[in-house]
């Protein structure tokens, strides 16, 4: 293949995109460089990586509950992702494969709810959770400071139901019909045919659900009030309170909390972008 030459007419495009790239990348660079510097160096405006990386890690392990929060966030995000994509794909599949006029009406009503801002639901949801947990026996872990209360309200995502229905439209109904004739049960069709064939769709949906859970701040900070239950965004928020802040430490914690999503992005770039824009082709 011949190398493309840089055309003069595109010089403006290169300049513009280069500036945009520098602006986009600089905060990442500064965050990572600062994670390896002492607070004093960061304040002094040091731009180069330093030698304080291990010291900052030691401070983090000794003085913050970052590791606990990392574990909490991971556990929460993994469980929430699995449940969310399972429940939402059930509905997306059901709406499309067993299409009927009545179900389409229900589907339209669900779509309307995408316009409702989550902030409107926060107060009534909080009251629902605490009122229900009041009447539940103590043995059931539900209410303030429980993972279930953080996860449950987001479990059936209307966006993901829509996403799965759109993808199901491209799913070959002949395969289902053939397996049905072979005696596969309706539930079997879903588990043995649909899920394996649609793994790209599941990957994209999983990324959306995982990011949603990993990044969530408002709802978790309302529900999770004890340090042992805190997630990463809550710990990051608390780490900046107070008069004295260890810059290197805070940048290290920000950096570490971005890494998991970064890994997912670079490993599954195609699914990542497809998931973000809510379309799957092929």
């Amino acid at each position: 293949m011949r190398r493309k030459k840089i055309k003069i007419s595109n010089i403006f495009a290169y300049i513009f995109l280069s500036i945009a790239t520098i602006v986009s990348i600089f905060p990442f660079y500064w965050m990572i460089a600062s994670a390896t510097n002492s607070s004093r160096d960061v304040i002094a405006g040091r731009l180069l990586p330093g030698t304080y990386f291990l010291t900052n890690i030691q401070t983090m392990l000794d003085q913050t509950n970052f590791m606990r929060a990392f574990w909490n966030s991971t556990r929460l995000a993994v469980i929430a992702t699995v449940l969310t994509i399972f429940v939402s794909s059930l509905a997306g599949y059901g709406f499309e494969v067993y299409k009927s006029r009545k179900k389409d009406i229900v589907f339209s009503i669900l779509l309307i709810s995408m316009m409702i801002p989550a902030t409107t639901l926060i107060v009534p949801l909080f009251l629902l959770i605490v009122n229900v947990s009041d009447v539940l026996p103590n043995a059931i872990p539900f209410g303030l400071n429980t993972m279930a209360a953080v996860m449950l309200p987001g479990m059936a995502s209307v966006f993901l139901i829509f996403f799965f229905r759109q993808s199901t439209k491209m799913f070959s109904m002949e395969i289902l019909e053939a397996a049905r004739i072979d005696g596969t049960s309706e539930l079997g069709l879903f588990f043995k045919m649909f899920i394996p064939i649609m793994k790209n769709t599941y990957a994209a949906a999983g990324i959306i659900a995982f990011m949603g859970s990993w990044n969530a701040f408002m709802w978790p900070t309302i529900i999770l009030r004890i340090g042992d239950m805190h997630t990463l965004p809550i710990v990051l928020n608390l780490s900046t309170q107070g008069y004295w802040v260890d810059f290197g430490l805070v940048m290290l914690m920000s950096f570490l909390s971005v890494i998991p999503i970064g890994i997912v992005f670079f490993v599954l770039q195609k699914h990542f972008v497809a998931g973000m824009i809510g379309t799957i082709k092929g």
Partner: protein
Amino acid sequence: MGKAFSFNRLKSGLVGWGFILIPVILVGVFIFYPMFRAFQLSLQTGIGRRNLVYIDPWYGNYARLIQDSTFWTALQNNFFYLIIQVPIMIVLAMTFAVLLNKKDLRFRGFFRTCIFLPAITSLMAYSTVFRYMFDTTNGILNNIMLDLGLISTPIGWLTDPSLARITIIIAITWRWTGYNMIFYLSSLQNVDEGIYEAARIDGANSVQSFFKITVPMLKPIILFTSVMSTIGTLQLFDEVMQIPSTPGGPGNATTTLAQYIFNISFLWQPDFGYAASISFVMLAIILALSAIQFWVTRDRDRLKKSQGRH
């Protein structure tokens, strides 16, 4: 035959409902019920969750918020962010997408990945980084500008009320432009190159084909991204909690409706009824603005086409 057929239909009907039952119940319990409850709450008053009583007159909370200067400040801030940030971001996103769609441009993948990268950061993580980048005395931004001699005294990015709002806008634009760009790019990639070729032969220059071909074709995406950004900006919360030196600060300079709702419900003595009335105003604004955006970008041909493919 007839009987078996209807039996199968009944069975497949029930199986279908079986698939959607649990998700539909969840959406009902965790979205629709809270929405109606929010409206009911907005007509109630009382401290805490056990003392809620209906207000007389029923619009008591709404009358109160008209007199509430913090509510107006928050609403103004939300609109300030919305009116300035959303257009800037959409124009930038569209420009990047058009440039990155040029087939004769090198390093396209590299530019695209870099510009998209901010979208993978968690809101709290990027807000933390921006908080310290824009710090007045210790921030890297002032440090660099002082070193380069661009300024002689540090700029109070987060201590000056107007600059604090602008810093929030800069931050949100950094986080979301690449995300929106992806929508435009994927839509541009579906455009038939022949149209541009034909326009060129007819004597159209690149500026003309941008406004006469590209923009009309991107209309559904412009609508979609502006509705999504409007909904997002009106609910702005994480950034104003983390970037300013105090949440929503200095004073109330950067506070938003979402933060005010949070403060009333969970930070101060909880007045859930009043918070619910503010959240209902937010819902009404979002619905109204979305309706306006649909109306402004309405286009009958486009509507007919999009009905087929969503």
